């Protein structure tokens, strides 16, 4: 096939793309824009400074919105989750000790709020339908070989089609069809960039359980995208 070892290394060793937000578990870097850090704004907010809290809201609302929207699947619910989460954060802020980053703490509050909302909906008579129990996954022969082998590499075509609206719709549908527990973990990790440890804490799971769900969700989505590309 003409694959050099260098090609293989290049393909295999690229890490995940850089995130557009700092990782929640990393120490907060000093800001270069002259703006106060989260820690400084938190300290002011803890003293009752509503304007400082407003700066924190302005800074984190977009990321929290993505999380809430993807967890609930509804803009109206996301709106309510955001309101509830920020109000909770304001009320609980005096007890925040800064042992984790503020953004990480805020994520946990929002994730809990979204999960509680979903649970309430499921209990309602016209609540969400039961989630599918089976996830798509690759198939293997009795010898443990990929069967059928994925000879069609659609990853390059995926780059060309990156911005296609059809692909966007297919991805949205595939993610929405994941069982809720898997979807939540996948979104928190691969879209929002939380650490496995933060996700485990937020969702009351073990880290191995987070990893397992994440991997199975990725495998299922990969199968769906393979179907989209005709692989």
């Amino acid at each position, binding site marked *: 096939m003409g694959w050099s070892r260098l090609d293989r290394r290049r393909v295999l060793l690229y890490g995940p793309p850089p995130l557009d937000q700092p990782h929640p578990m990393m120490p907060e870097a000093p800001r270069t824009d002259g703006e106060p850090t989260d820690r400084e704004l938190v300290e002011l907010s803890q003293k009752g400074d509503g304007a400082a809290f407003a700066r924190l809201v302005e800074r984190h609302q977009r990321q929290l919105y993505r999380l809430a929207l993807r967890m609930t699947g509804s803009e109206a619910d996301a709106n309510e989750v955001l309101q509830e989460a920020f109000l909770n954060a304001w009320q609980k802020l005096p007890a925040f000790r800064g042992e984790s980053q503020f953004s990480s703490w805020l994520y946990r509050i929002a994730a809990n709020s979204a999960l509680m909302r979903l649970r309430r909906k499921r209990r309602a008579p016209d609540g969400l339908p039961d989630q599918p129990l089976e996830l798509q996954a690759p198939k293997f022969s009795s010898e443990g070989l990929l069967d059928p082998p994925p000879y069609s590499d659609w990853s390059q075509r995926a780059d060309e089609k*990156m911005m296609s609206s059809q692909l966007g719709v297919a991805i949205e549908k595939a993610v929405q069809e994941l069982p809720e527990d898997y979807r939540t973990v996948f979104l928190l990790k691969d879209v929002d960039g939380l650490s496995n440890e933060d996700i485990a804490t937020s969702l009351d799971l073990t880290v191995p359980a987070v990893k397992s769900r994440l991997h199975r969700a990725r495998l299922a989505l990969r199968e769906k995208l393979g179907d989209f590309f005709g692989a």
Partner: protein
Amino acid sequence: MIEHCKECVDLLGDYVEGQLPPEQEKALETHLSMCMPCITFVRTYKATRRLCRTALAKEMPSELMGALSSFLGKHVPGFSCPKSKQGQPEAVAPDSELKKG
């Protein structure tokens, strides 16, 4: 020593995040250097993450920002969002970065 694709696929989650112990990582890469189906599998596995992240990154509607600001304004004394920034789009990673591995 990894002989079968199934073992390779089972380890991929930790592998793409650089969390495999060195010995397992080496064994997996040895398998990958000999198994074209698994190379294709790894590439499409990584593309799945990248595509989902790109597709699911969405802007928060400005009306929703306004609604949130009004709500918090009623409950948080002294709350006032800096209006000049409310409608500004958030900076996201450029396509060139998202198209990597």
